[in-house]
């Protein structure tokens, strides 16, 4: 297929169209609105044969998705920031009731003050919700990962909902070069959705029973075990997708890591800026590399440990402040993942890119030198906010 220029949001919509989604529950919120608008156009023009429900809030958007998925329909919605917060309680229900739903999240900063611009505070608020979560770095990935999300979530060995994260504005609104897939290719990759339980009069089930203390813990353990087991299917699906498209995804992706003593760790669109910084530093002879978390949940413990095995310093960039705790959520998780390792790098954290703030290549280079300094001093300091007045 030929390479085209397309906005990240529209790329996501194309994936939903190719997947032949059945139901789209749509509520607009900056910066995901272009996704639901494009989908509305597709439905209006007969390009996508789906029921488009213009719900009256995000809480209802996710709730409608629950009903839709439980009835056996391939279901999609999109949200961002405040919208993800508003549907917070429903997000937990989707996963604990094992209802595959694909949701694109155009990551946005949280109020107050109001900010429509991108950061990861909305993502960090849903870490524990038992959704499979992946991060796109560019428009191509936004398309690919959305398609894969249907394949993964609906797999009979998974049956969990999936969030595809794309940075608000930086990915949602930027036109990027990408390649779509043919419908015939997608049809080979994506089997029809068939849930073992469905709302069906011939086999009446009760979904959403309440659990007494005597049994709630067992239900959660079952969910926990099932969620961890999804990793195998994620790897398999990405492998198949790689064969189909030529684009291979893995839970932790590497950039110049082979001989790197210092590694940067990023998630999302700033990974590409970091790559430029790595290139420039390498030209000066520094052994720096970059790893990117593609898979955020379930957390890729093994792949992370392997990726940093030979590094001396690991510099983690967070795009969210966790107030009152260790301030960088990703940094905390990375440290926890490495805690029990005999040999592990010194982990230094930075927080940046809040509320749509840019992080330039130069700043990444500064993070590397500051990170090195902190590690040398033996001070694995509390993550600092970078680029702040």
């Amino acid at each position: 297929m030929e390479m085209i220029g397309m906005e990240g949001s529209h790329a996501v919509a194309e994936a939903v169209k190719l997947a032949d989604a059945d139901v789209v529950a749509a509520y607009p919120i900056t910066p995901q609105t272009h996704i639901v608008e494009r989908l509305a156009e597709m439905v209006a023009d007969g390009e996508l044969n789906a029921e488009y429900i213009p719900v009256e809030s995000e809480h209802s958007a996710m709730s409608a998705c629950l009903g839709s998925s439980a009835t056996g329909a391939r279901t999609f919605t999109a949200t961002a920031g405040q919208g993800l917060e508003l549907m917070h309680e429903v997000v937990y229900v989707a996963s604990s009731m094992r209802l595959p739903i694909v949701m694109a999240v155009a990551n946005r900063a949280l109020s107050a003050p109001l900010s429509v611009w991108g950061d990861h505070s909305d993502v960090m608020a849903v870490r524990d919700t038992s959704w499979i979560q992946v991060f796109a770095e560019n428009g191509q990935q936004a398309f690919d990962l959305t398609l894969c999300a249907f394949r993964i979530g609906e797999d009979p060995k998974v049956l969990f909902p999936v969030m595809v994260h794309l940075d608000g504005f930086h990915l949602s609104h930027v036109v990027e070069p990408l390649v779509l897939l043919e419908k015939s290719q997608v049809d080979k990759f994506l089997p029809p959705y068939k849930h073992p339980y469905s709302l069906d009069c011939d086999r009446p089930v009760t979904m959403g029973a309440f659990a007494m203390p005597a049994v709630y813990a067992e239900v959660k353990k079952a969910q926990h075990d099932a969620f961890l087991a999804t990793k195998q299917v994620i790897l398999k699906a990405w492998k198949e997708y790689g064969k189909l498209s030529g684009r291979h995804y893995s839970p932790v992706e590497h950039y110049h890591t082979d001989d790197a003593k210092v590694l940067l760790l990023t998630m999302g669109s700033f990974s590409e800026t970091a790559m430029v910084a790595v290139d420039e530093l390498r030209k000066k002879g520094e052994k720096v590399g970059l790893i990117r978390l593609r898979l955020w949940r379930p957390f890729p413990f093994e792949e992370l440990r392997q990726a940093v095995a030979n590094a001396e310093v690991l510099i983690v960039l967070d795009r969210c402040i966790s107030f009152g705790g260790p301030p960088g959520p990703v940094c905390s998780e990375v440290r926890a993942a490495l805690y029990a390792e005999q040999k592990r790098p010194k982990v230094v954290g930075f927080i940046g890119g809040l509320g749509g703030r840019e992080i330039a290549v130069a700043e990444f280079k500064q993070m590397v030198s500051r990170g090195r300094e902190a590690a040398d001093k033996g001070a694995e300091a509390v993550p600092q906010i970078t680029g702040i007045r």
Partner: protein
Amino acid sequence: MSARRKQTGMTSGEVSLGAVVDEAGNAVEYKTGDWRSQRPVLNKDRCIRCGICYIYCPEGCIRQGPGGYFEADLYYCKGCGICARECWTQAIHMEPEE
């Protein structure tokens, strides 16, 4: 295994997908009849077999038995007394449970 034993004895491996209950109406196993402190007693001589008690029972445990008379299934009957109160011919009266 009874539902009660399942609830307190089920292992995480035995929990159904998404905690779905796949056995329609299996609550019928639960003996709500243990709740009552009074029970309905039917005087067949007065009963005109109209079925109004059957209509008004919140448990739905009144059934038409031999001869067409409507009697409460004491396995479920909670002893609310609605049937006795509503009976047209006052054929039902409530008696204290032992």
